[in-house]
């Protein structure tokens, strides 16, 4: 089983990838997913979602989760 990691907008460009999969054993929280998936520090204003619901960096993750990172939103 794996965790699917997605990046959007400016964060996708900075990280250099739209999505990837990591081993579900590698991370217990959203913050650890970021550390496993990227080689940089998370920008302070980053928004996070697990399975398409907003969460905080300390939120636990499980095998099969979809974890997303993105910058502040600018729709409307």
């Amino acid at each position, binding site marked *: 089983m794996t965790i699917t990691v997605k990046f959007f907008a400016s964060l996708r460009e900075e990280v250099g990838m739209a999505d990837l999969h990591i081993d579900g054993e590698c991370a217990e929280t959203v913050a650890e997913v970021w550390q496993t998936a990227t080689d940089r520090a998370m920008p302070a204003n980053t928004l996070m979602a697990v399975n398409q619901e907003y969460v905080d960096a300390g939120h636990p993750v499980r095998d099969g989760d979809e974890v997303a990172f993105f910058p*502040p*939103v*600018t*729709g*409307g």
Partner: protein
Amino acid sequence: MIVRLLAEPFDPWQTVQAHQREHLAPGSYGATALFVGTMRDFNQGDTVRGMTLEHYPGMTERYLEDISRQAAARWDILDSLICHRVGPLRPDDPIVLVAVWSAHRAAAFDASRWLMEELKSRAPFWKKEVTAAGERWVENT
């Protein structure tokens, strides 16, 4: 209660008329509050030639459906409609339509304003605009 993401330009006025015909009984509503957001050709002092709207497929729809349900629970409204563009846009293109129907004006005004503010602050959309100097992500202000 309908949420639609649109990849092609749309006419918000025709969309509202069609929605009323299909979903609202004549005589049932006394108030219709509309907000339409339209793409400007200027931002932060620069001429803007075009824009691309990125979104998070799946989460964006879920988020808009979630706030629509919250609005229906919080205010005495009959129906709501949210349409939002994605993909490439040009100046003067409508970006977003929020419409709310109710018996009396207060619920329609209040629910539509709340929906629009929630959409602006939390719905996962990102604007990238094209200026003479190139492309840039729009900053959240």
